[in-house]
């Protein structure tokens, strides 16, 4: 069965149903689809927006590397990774990872793996816009994201 791999870095919003169809239409061997969607939170009303900066070129290349690792490791049938940049408001989607496989655990693990490595290795940075108009800070990287990545062991 041929592999479907889709990577996109864009400002525009995306449609999870379109990615689901991309990975499942005409593929009766697919038994499981896992989709992860990451949203901009308002942090209890503190934030008015997030500004997402990225390294053009490297962002796409790094997502491609992570996606290929996941496909090989979990024997996925299809994988789609879309990450937005620019100004994103609370409640809006930031990232979508869709993974298909014959059986459910590979699809769960594939999507989870991509998110863990995306968080720690894909060149994106978030700056906060405060709801009260004060100067927003760059979001700091979290040790727990490194721990989450390390649960997959060494390559």
């Amino acid at each position: 069965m041929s592999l479907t791999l889709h990577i996109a870095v864009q400002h525009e919003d995306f449609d999870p149903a379109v990615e689901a169809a991309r990975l499942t239409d005409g593929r009766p061997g697919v038994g499981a689809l896992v989709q992860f969607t990451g949203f901009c939170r308002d942090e209890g009303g503190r934030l008015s927006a997030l500004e997402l900066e990225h390294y053009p070129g490297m962002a796409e290349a790094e997502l491609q590397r992570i996606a290929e690792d996941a496909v090989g490791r979990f024997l996925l049938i299809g994988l789609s990774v879309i990450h937005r940049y620019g100004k994103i408001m609370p409640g809006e989607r930031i990232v979508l990872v869709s993974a298909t496989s014959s059986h459910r655990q590979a699809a769960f693990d594939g999507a989870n793996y991509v998110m863990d490595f995306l968080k720690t290795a894909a060149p994106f940075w978030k700056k906060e816009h405060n709801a009260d108009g004060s100067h927003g800070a760059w979001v700091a990287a979290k040790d727990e994201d490194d721990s989450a990545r390390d649960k997959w062991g060494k390559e």
Partner: protein
Amino acid sequence: MMVKIVYFAWVREKIGKGEEELDLPAEVTTVADLLTYLKTLGEEYDEALKFPEAVRVALNQEHAHHSEKIAGVREIGIFPPMTGG
């Protein structure tokens, strides 16, 4: 050696520019050497790279350790730890 250097997030804000072309002295051979050299270029560089171990570096758009050699590299990215997703 001429190289394009690109900065992102707070490294970019502190240095005050997104990219520049630099002619590196011959004694700058590793990523760590480069970070030490950049700190000599002005107060804003010194401030941005005060803790060199806190920044990440990519050589030709691939993550690199600070011990790696930079000979022949065309583009070097310098940025904070990533916070996407």
